[in-house]
């Protein structure tokens, strides 16, 4: 429901005076950020960038390779000069779009050189070079769209390098996993730094949100490591990742405000770190029940933290995930009639308890299906 309609409803109900509603509306419209404008402009820039890459990938053979490279370099230089000379005078949406175009054009140019000189299949080298060359450019962005696109590019580049590290002849699977699993903590640490929050709040918000999502996803995946026996030396590197993760978690512990939401967030971080690394190194295997409990514990903590932070959508999602996991537990305990029956009874009771808890809490914190209906009843 839009703010205007909601305020009108509150005025009608006698909760606030019309003058107060007017002042709230003026205040909110004054701080509104043109998110849609940034997103649409960014998408336009992305379309142009993908277009360049696609034209290059078509490997148009009517133009000799070196002529193609000369034209491409001309375009890259012209784009760079335009951006450097005039971008500070452009409206912000145009500047963000130009950044996205230059970002894509750089990737396309590297791919073109690879095509013309038949440089072979070193995708990781191309992506590494692309990411390195564009770091100073992408830090100039101001919108969440550019931050999201850049973080996606960096993560894909890192994934390509980590898969190379894990493969023969490097065979450093443990290191690849240890480094890869640290990425969410790095996003979160960068996003929560006071300096970034001050100089580039959009980037800070995107990195923080991305970090939290990835922390929860990696811990959810990590909990499933209890199913396999992981007592192998090749996973020793995970201890290094765990130690670095612990340092970052300690730093984040201090950064999170000591509010109820912040306190639960701290414990969520610590549990997520443990689940990401420890089962992947120490599990004896066939610990299905531990895996299920660890997963349920994690998502219960997500639900409580979201509840404390006043995020009803996340509470809803966490409840759904918990319910689905409990259903999966039913199938896991299927065996004899007795175990199946007990599993179903306990699982069913747990689900009902969960729904009851969710129903009570969601009415307290807010909007959404349950809350609306509760108010109506």
């Amino acid at each position, binding site marked *: 429901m839009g703010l205007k309609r909601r305020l009108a409803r509150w005025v009608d109900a006698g909760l606030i005076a019309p003058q107060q509603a007017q002042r709230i509306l003026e205040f909110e419209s004054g701080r509104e950020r043109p998110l849609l404008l940034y997103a649409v402009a960014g998408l336009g820039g992305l379309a142009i960038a993908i277009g360049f890459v696609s034209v290059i990938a*078509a*490997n148009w053979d009517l133009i000799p390779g070196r002529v193609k490279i000369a034209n491409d*370099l001309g375009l890259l230089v012209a784009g760079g000069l335009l951006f450097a000379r005039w971008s500070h005078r452009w409206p912000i949406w145009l500047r963000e779009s130009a950044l996205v175009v*230059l970002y894509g054009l750089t990737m396309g140019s590297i791919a073109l*050189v690879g095509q013309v000189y*038949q*440089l*072979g299949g070193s995708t990781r080298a191309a992506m590494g070079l692309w990411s*390195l060359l564009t770091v100073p450019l992408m830090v*100039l962005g101001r919108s969440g769209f550019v931050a999201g696109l850049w973080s996606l590019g960096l993560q894909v580049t890192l994934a390509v390098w980590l898969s190379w590290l894990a493969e023969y002849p490097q065979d450093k699977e443990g290191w690849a996993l240890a480094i890869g699993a640290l990425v969410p903590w790095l996003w979160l640490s960068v996003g929560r730094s006071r300096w970034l929050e001050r100089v580039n709040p959009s980037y800070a918000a995107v990195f923080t949100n991305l970090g939290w999502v990835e922390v929860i996803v990696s811990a959810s995946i990590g909990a499933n490591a209890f199913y396999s026996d992981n007592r192998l030396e090749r996973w020793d590197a995970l201890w290094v990742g765990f130690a670095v993760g612990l340092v970052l978690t300690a730093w984040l512990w201090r950064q999170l405000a000591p509010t109820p939401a912040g306190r639960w967030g701290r414990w969520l971080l610590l549990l997520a770190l443990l689940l990401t690394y420890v089962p992947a190194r120490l599990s004896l295997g066939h610990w299905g029940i531990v895996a299920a409990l660890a997963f349920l514990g994690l998502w219960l903590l997500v639900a409580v933290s979201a509840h404390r932070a006043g995020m009803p959508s996340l509470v809803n999602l966490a409840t759904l995930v918990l319910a689905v996991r409990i259903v999966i537990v039913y199938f896991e305990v299927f065996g004899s009639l007795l175990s199946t029956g007990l599993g179903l009874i306990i699982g069913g009771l747990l689900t009902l308890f969960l729904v009851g808890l969710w129903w009570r809490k969601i009415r307290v914190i807010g909007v959404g299906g349950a809350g609306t209906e509760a108010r109506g009843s």
Partner: protein
Amino acid sequence: MNGKLLVAWRWGAAMLPALGVLALVAQSEIRVRAGASFRLQIRGYDPRDLMRGHYLQYRYEFNWRGEDTCRAYSGPPGEERLERSCCLCLTRQGGQDAEPWVYQVDCKSHSSLVCDGWLRARDVMPPQRFYIPEARSTILEDALRVRRATLEVTVNAWGEPVVKELYLDGVPWSKAIAVTGTTP
């Protein structure tokens, strides 16, 4: 960041991609020009499906001759026996324009051998890729099934292969296809 520093950063950030790509072009030009050129026979990596998107997937068909001296290797010579940690010694014993003789050697000893060029085995392991124009992929795929395909490869001082041109029956592929069209 103060005003002057911000302007300097903006100029540096905007021009760095162009400078980086220019450096990559320069490095590629040096790689193409430095070193000895060889014609090496190839065939499709997967005979049923030669093209993958806009590139041909191939493997080298080396003219294996001479004794394998790489310690990691044991067994009959053959492409499947390429060992990543070894190197390949290429010699022109068959003649200047003929396909080079190839044998696998220990990478530490290649410099003491009489090689006209040497390659790191890991750089020629299948599948390899040759980029082709989108519109010609079907014609080229048909041609590759019936013609002898060779690559002109420059081998530089670091043992890296740089592919210069694809030949079909000794003619650059674009000309070979232009002459015969779709019925090679």
